[in-house]
């Protein structure tokens, strides 16, 4: 399945808008020319700030050949009949429109370098990347399919945690995804997590930190409790570098910190170490949809 229309629509929109030609870096204040920013993988050319990426832009940055999306038909319901300022269903609708995504994660198969992989990419732009049933179900399904096809799994996380509006059904996705990770792990296939800004709560305390190798994107905020919650608890300001990828590297929580332009090459090297050269997961035959292209 090729890159969906949403993305093209979004891009067209952006390119039509005059104002969108220039973007201000929230870190250093520099005005950046959008095309240049995009060419630099969404990293500020002046200070190295990593802009958050749209899931499909991220996918484009990582993969070779095409992206075979799966799980797109898994869509949210409103099990708690939730409504606060607006009904949950309305929120979903406006997020869908704004993000051009059907939910907070996109899952599918792709080739990174020559390696066929099961790939999941979260998007903070949809409900703050929160994990509700759909994220849990898509992740679970992806790991199950990866296990069945003997493929490595790569998940790019970006999440504010469990999704309030689905209550305990959201929390239980931590258990569900964990069990799928476990089955994949016990079958002997590699799992690489890429933690991007921000990765917190129910996602960080489940599949994000269960990977064989954990890569964190430079400067990403990563932690269990959110910064605000901690500051309220201790009633003081936290140091700037607290919960950054670099801080976590020093504290021993993540294996590697990379700047985004190096991410793809890093993943290819890691896959090259971890994927058994003789295994069926090494050839594109594991994903006939890719091989056929």
């Amino acid at each position, binding site marked *: 399945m090729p890159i969906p229309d949403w993305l093209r629509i979004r891009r067209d929109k952006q390119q039509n808008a005059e104002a969108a030609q220039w973007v201000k870096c929230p870190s250093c204040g520099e005005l950046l020319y959008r095309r240049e920013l995009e060419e630099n993988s969404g990293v500020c050319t002046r200070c190295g700030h990593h802009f958050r990426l749209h899931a499909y832009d991220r996918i484009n940055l990582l993969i070779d050949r095409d992206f*075979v999306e*799966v*799980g797109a*038909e*898994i*869509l949210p*319901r409103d*099990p*708690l009949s*939730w409504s*606060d*300022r607006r009904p949950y269903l309305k929120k979903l609708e406006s997020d869908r429109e704004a993000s051009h995504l059907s939910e907070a994660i996109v899952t599918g198969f792709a080739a990174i370098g020559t390696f066929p992989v099961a790939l999941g990419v979260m998007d903070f732009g949809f409900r703050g990347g929160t994990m509700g*049933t*759909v994220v*849990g*179900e898509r992740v679970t*399904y992806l790991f199950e399919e990866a296990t069945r096809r003997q493929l490595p799994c790569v998940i790019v996380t970006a999440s504010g945690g*469990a*999704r*309030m509006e*689905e*209550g*305990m*059904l959201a*929390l*239980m*996705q*931590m*258990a*569900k995804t*964990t*069990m799928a*990770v*476990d089955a994949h792990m*016990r079958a002997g296939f590699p799992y690489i997590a890429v933690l991007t800004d921000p990765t917190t*709560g*129910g996602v*960080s*305390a*489940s599949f*994000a*930190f*269960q990977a064989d190798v954990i890569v964190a994107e430079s400067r990403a905020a*990563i*932690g*269990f*409790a959110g910064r605000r*919650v*901690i500051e*309220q*608890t*201790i009633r003081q300001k*936290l140091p700037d570098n*607290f919960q950054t990828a670099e801080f*976590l590297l020093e*504290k*021993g*929580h993540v294996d590697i910190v990379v700047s985004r332009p190096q991410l793809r090459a890093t993943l290819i090297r890691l896959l090259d170490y971890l994927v058994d050269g003789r295994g069926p997961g090494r050839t594109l035959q594991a994903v*006939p*949809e890719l091989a056929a292209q």
Partner: protein
Amino acid sequence: MNIIVEREKSLEALEQRIEDLRARSARQGGESSEDMRALEDRYAALQRDMFGHLTPWERVNMARHPRRPIASDYIARLDEFDELHGDRQFRDDPALVGGLGRLNGRRIVVLAQQKGRDTKENIRRNFGMVTPEGYRKARRLMELAGRFALPIVSFVDTSGADPGIASEERSQSEAIASCLLTLSRVPVPVVAAIIGEGGSGGALAIALADHVIMLEHSIYSVASPEGCAAILWADASRAEEAAARLKLTSDDLLGFGIVDEIVSEPLGGAHRDADRFVGRVLGTIDAALSHLSNVNRELLVERRRAKYRRIGAWQETSQRFASVAAR
């Protein structure tokens, strides 16, 4: 301020009046028995009014009631218990009590989130909020349980995992994620009892189980009502409203298939008849263990996986892999 405690205070005045009346009537003979009956009726009616049907917010308060049985009350009623301390690396976390025990003769591994009964004890126990060391101790004991084929019984009672700086520095995320991973594969029966507050991932870390028992007025929630209100509306005082929306009661969760069994509480809550009630909960756990002990180990883990596999509410617009002919 706990609204259940406040109600109990108002009832106490009435109780005192009934007591006084009883004493007076005993002195004067049976004449005021009609007043008496009226008062007693009023008392019973009030009790039913106050406690007969509890709203989610009332249950939140019940789950946090200062006299509600806490983990140590259950552990004290085991045949035997030997606490095992520490994560073997950094610290023994008093908020997570673990050890070897015996319930109705059956050897078990116990994991319990332990609140305190008074302020001093609560400070020592960090109000039941577990740090990474506590989860790492729990994980170690889960592995011990697996090694020696001992079933795991966990008592869940926490407002959430500890959200402090130090816990972040030692990777609370990894600690919880590892507990989940271990529980997802440990080949022994796991029974969890939500005895008070089941707060978020910090609760789930020891509650991923073959059989989840929830006390009627306990709560089990994706976030504390205060936290939810703060996050969604930047207004923690709207906790009552959040409690109503979050579907955190035992009935709700039984309906969702998240909880497998409810133990109903005496009118007014578990603490009204604590001793008997604790025994009933332990009996319920024991029954679940009896049932699970007959299941073959592989099947046990398989069923556990299948149980959690189903949980959620989603729709599918079309068949999965509609675009893939091969499947």
